């Protein structure tokens, strides 16, 4: 076994990934990019789960990751369908223009 990668490294990586995800979510206007940034955040969280699971030698973290992946997959399916529907009706994916709910 090679030397153990310290847990902090995983956490820092996850934090960086999550922050990129948040930043992209806030800055980007394209709905698909926003969607991707959500996936990025989810996976950053997954990474911390796996890291802690490994550290404590417990499987429950890994099981959570599977659940998250399943939910993310379902969400991607539904979300992409919604995005297509929006594009068909409004001919745009700019989030600032999808403002029907705004009074």
């Amino acid at each position, binding site marked *: 076994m090679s030397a153990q990668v310290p847990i902090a490294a995983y956490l820092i990586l996850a934090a960086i990934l999550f922050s990129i995800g948040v930043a992209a979510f*806030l800055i980007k206007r394209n709905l698909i990019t926003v969607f991707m940034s959500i996936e990025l955040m989810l996976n950053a969280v997954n990474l911390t789960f796996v890291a802690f699971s490994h550290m404590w030698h417990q499987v429950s973290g890994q099981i959570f990751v599977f659940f998250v992946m399943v939910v993310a997959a379902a969400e991607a399916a539904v979300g992409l369908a919604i995005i297509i529907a929006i594009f068909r009706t409004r001919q745009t994916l700019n*989030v600032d223009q999808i403002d029907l709910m705004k009074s």
Partner: protein
Amino acid sequence: MPSNLWLIPILPFAGFLINGTVGRKLPRRAVTAIALLFTIYPAYIVMNLWLFMKSAGAPLAFTVTSGPWIAITGLHIDFAFTVDHLTLIMLGVVTGVGFLIHLYSAGYMAHEEGYWRFFAYLNLFMFFMSILVLSSSFLLLFVGWEGVGLASYLLVGFYFKKDSAANAGKKAFIVNRIGDFGFLLAMFLIVREFGSLDFTHVFNAISANPDWHGGILTAIALLLVLGATGKSAQIPLYIWLPDAMEGPTPVSALIHAATMVTAGIYMIARCHTLFDRSPYALAVVAIIGAATAIFAACIGMVQHDIKRVLAYSTVSQLGYMFLACGVGAYTAGIFHLLTHAFFKALLFLAAGSVIHSLSGEQDMRKMGGLRKRIPITFWTMTMGVFAIAGIPPLAGFFSKDEILYQAFISNNPLGKLLWFVGLVTAGMTAFYMFRLWFKTFFGPERFDEHTDLHDHGAAVHTHSGSHAVMVVDPEESHTHGVHESPWIMLFPLVVLAILSIIGGWVGVPAAMGGHNEIEHFLDPVFGTGAIAEASTSAASHGLELGLAAVSVLTALTGLFIAYLFYYKKPGTAAALAQRAPALYRLVENKFYMDEIYGAVIITPLLMFSRIFLGGLIDGGIVNGSGAAAAATTRGLGSLVRKVQSGNIRSYAGWLALGAAAVLLVMIFGRSIWPH
């Protein structure tokens, strides 16, 4: 017997509910039947009650209590009715005359719009009036007191599409409120002083303490007098009654002559124990009464509207009753109330019949010569005129004479002056009533006949002299010549005429060989029997007869002057008026009382309301606080609205910031706030 006492007020109320809710959809016959049935049955009960009270061994008064009405610490008021002899007389007037006037209205109002509404209000009035006279406490009396005011307001403003009628209704209501305010204050004082509003309790408390004079009793009595001046149209609150003539004539007869306006006199008589202890308040009552009597009679002499003459006459006669109460002759006051109810209701109804026959004309300058055209109305009205003028042996003679006599012999230092004022008023009364009589029924026909195609149609226009001929509107379809009223209207007239003749015979004084039955009848209430007995010694019989002769002579003088002015030489009055134009105009304009009140009270009040209450309080504080609350909400809203932008990314940004804040607190918070 006492058990169906409740039906007396409740039946008219049921009539009011039925006619008031579904009356609009009912045929007129049904409305009439309901209104009449629900008023004749109480009259029947009262008749039985009368027989019961007259029967041997009957109690002097009995009370029916339904149970506690208001029961709090220190104050207990039962919902209770009391019947004694005074109540009985009032009930007789209210239900008896009330029924006759209902009957009359069925004919008089037959072609009016809102027929059902009229009868609903009339029944409502009967309900409250019965409550008023039956109540056994000040509070219940006040309920009736306010209720009749409401009914009066509704009925005066019955033709509410006419501005003048609507305004007259409001005036009647508002002026009465001033009196009611006095009544309320009096009740507060009574509660404070006696801890009860029950008549028996309060009056027993006063009787139990024979040394109690003046002081708080005077204050209570004066406040009650204020209430009475409002309801009974006395100076200074009489101004509403003449305007109340805007209502239909049966209303004037029932409410503004026979019953409601006598409520003030009834109330004073009811509280006689209280008033007897306050010579000052009694003197005020007497002076108000005498002043009102002569003042109103003055105005009545120059009015041209037949109903207004009668209205001022009512005010004047009510002044008489006040005068009687003021000299402590409550029996005489109630006696006059009774006879006045007969003859004044008769006069109003007969005037209504005249107006009806002339298709709504009320100006006496456009009447005349009606004697032959409407003979039954003429004869019944003649009875009324002679009765009110005090010609023996009609009703008014006995009651008016009793008042004058009592004023004369009273130990009030003003007694002789009051008597003299009353005497002059009697002369003036005779004058203006005969003036009305001559102008309406005698002389040339000054009215215009619209559709009567008989030969004397042309003659009408020629001798109208300086008087303007009534402008005829050919479009008016309901005019159909001068005609006698239908029997449904004449029957009450005849009954009331008979009562006006014989009504006074219950009070024939001993000096004229009578028994003065009404005095004995009311003895249990007023307890003046012993005093009256003592004063009617043989020596005073001569005095009483002499005074009666003087007042009859005065009345005849009034009659003679009216005869001269309005029958023999019709121009005399006008010539006299031209001699003293300023005086005549002053009187004709009712001494400008309305204008004075307008300038002295109403205008400042309006200014105060508009500027202070309307501008500062309402505009500044009430509206201002609302506006301030609205502005605060709007300001806060505009701040918070920025958060709800509808922009997904800004939501996400807030979310991220919030999460970051939570994180920061969790990481560093512990070091800042250690446990």
